[in-house]
């Protein structure tokens, strides 16, 4: 049983009178522990696919099974719990909450998961230590460099030990050096057995993955086979 399995996923957007088909029959299967890059030009539908895989959005048609759960049938409150427990997001623009220090930022998923205060602090500190930021716990995101911020974001994404780590252009706002550092962290996580999915249009980034999926016009054009 694959970790992620989508069958004929279609996603339509209502743009007033016109219907735009962002995804047009996606069949995708990702095993636990894979490192997958989803590539495609802008407007290809790769972000939409990522949102559906990350349970931020639901498909218009088709089925999506994540970790043996038919996600496409779930209600919104159940999706929230899946996002909390099964999915970790890393964004291009980091999306840390600017007025909270980084410890609080990393604590957030645990808070929404109903973990007690003491336990939250312990786990969040542990995660920040694993990305090398133990000495910055009380700093606000604005006081950190881009690379450091993205490391905080990874710590926040991983703190609930999710089934998949979803990264959307994680190095897009970083210089080559820090971008490389971040990709190394992804490689480390993959090596430890985590499932990592990166959405990118950068070949250098995609080359780090062990499988590349290409999307054009809402369809997978090749790559749904192990590279």
């Amino acid at each position: 049983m694959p970790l992620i399995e989508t069958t004929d996923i279609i996603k339509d957007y209502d743009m007033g009178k016109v219907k735009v088909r962002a995804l047009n029959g996606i069949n995708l299967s990702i095993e636990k522990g894979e490192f997958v890059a989803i590539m495609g030009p802008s407007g290809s539908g790769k972000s939409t696919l990522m949102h559906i895989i990350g349970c931020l959005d639901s498909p218009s048609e088709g089925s999506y099974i994540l970790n043996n759960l038919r996600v496409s049938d779930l209600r919104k409150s159940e999706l929230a719990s899946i996002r909390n427990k099964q999915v970790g997001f890393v964004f291009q623009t980091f999306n840390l909450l600017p007025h909270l220090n980084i410890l609080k930022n990393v604590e957030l998923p645990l808070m929404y998961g109903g973990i007690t205060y003491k336990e939250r602090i312990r786990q969040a500190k542990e995660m920040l230590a694993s990305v090398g930021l133990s000495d910055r716990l009380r700093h606000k995101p604005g006081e950190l460099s881009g690379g450091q911020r993205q490391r905080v974001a990874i710590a926040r994404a991983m703190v609930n030990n999710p089934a998949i780590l979803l990264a959307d252009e994680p190095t897009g706002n970083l210089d080559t050096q820090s971008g490389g550092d971040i990709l190394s962290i992804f490689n480390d996580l993959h090596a430890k057995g985590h499932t990592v999915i990166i959405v990118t249009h950068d070949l250098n980034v995609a080359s780090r993955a062990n499988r590349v999926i290409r999307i054009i016009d809402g369809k997978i054009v090749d790559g749904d086979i192990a590279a």
Partner: protein
Amino acid sequence: MAISLRESVEIGLADIMTRKVRTGVTVLGIILGVMSIMVVLAIVNGMNKSTLRWMEERGGLNKIEVRPNWEMDFINWKQASFTFNELKLIRSLIPEAKAFNPQIAANRYPVQKSEISYDTQVRGVYPDMTITDEWEVQTGRFINYYDINNYNNVIVLGSTAATELFGNKNPIGENVVVQNNVLKVIGIMQTKYLKMQGGWGGDNALEYMNRQVFVPLTTMFKKTTLDQAVSNIEVKANSPEEAVLLRAKLQTIILNLKQGKKLFEVSSAKEQMDEMKQNAAIFTTIFVMIAVISLLVGGIVIMNIMLASVRERTREIGVRIAIGARRIDIFIQFMVQTILITSLGGVAGIILGYSILSLVGKYLSMELVASLSMIYAAVFVSVGVGLLFGIMPAIRASNLDPVTALRNE
């Protein structure tokens, strides 16, 4: 399971702390509204309390008064008077009355003791005056029915009158002269005292009573002041409720006695008090309405700011949803924040209201009564405003689509 209240409060406080000036300006309306409600209620409470105390000191709410109806066009005001027999008849018709005290008063009347002449109010009364005025003798005895029926030449002095006439000497058994009648002092009244700052008569609003002297009504009527007529009766019922009934009954009796001419006005303290309270209630309502309007305006301002805040924090909301916040979590977060802001305003309003009350109380010598229930009301109202005006922004925040929210710049 939603995130705990503690966490919502923490989030809300953190946001308030990062936007101190904005929060301060936002809650101004609530602060002023709560403050004015406090001040108005304290003034009204104070007024009611001092009126009640005044009424109680003058015989309480069980008292009924019969006075000439000055709206009548009297040829001679003595038309509105009672004979001794009429008084006996009235008394026999209202056996349920606890006390019955017809009286005459002569103002600035000379009371003489050898070389001293003391001008004061001489009151001709019944023994029941001790009940109607809730006023007993300090020493000696008060006038009794034997004195009334026999036109006895006796007099009871108010405490100030006693010292003015006799100094430190014991006046009991001594004689004084009132209009060529030698009257024997049989008692001294207790000293009446009611502290009322800014009132008349110095510190003691009831000092005028201590200057009075009392003789049996009949003695006064027949012997001392021939010019007098009994036109005033004080009656006391057993309870304020009975007083209202007794007043109506007494009015009918007197009306019948005087062939249907409305020569007398019969009023009960309870009804007067109620009327005063009603008048006060009108003012209270108006002021409270103004305060409530200010609170509503304050609430609208807060709603506006919260809507702007939702827009400003759209991305934050998107991030929170992405990492697992449910709609209810977002809803509660914004709800709690709005209520926190209004409660903050409420607390500030209470503090400001108290400061104003103590200032006003000090400099205007007004009686202001602040009570704990006012604080409850203020807290209740400010939380209520938060609830009412927080719902819309909170719903808007919790209905945001995460994908769109995350794209928001």
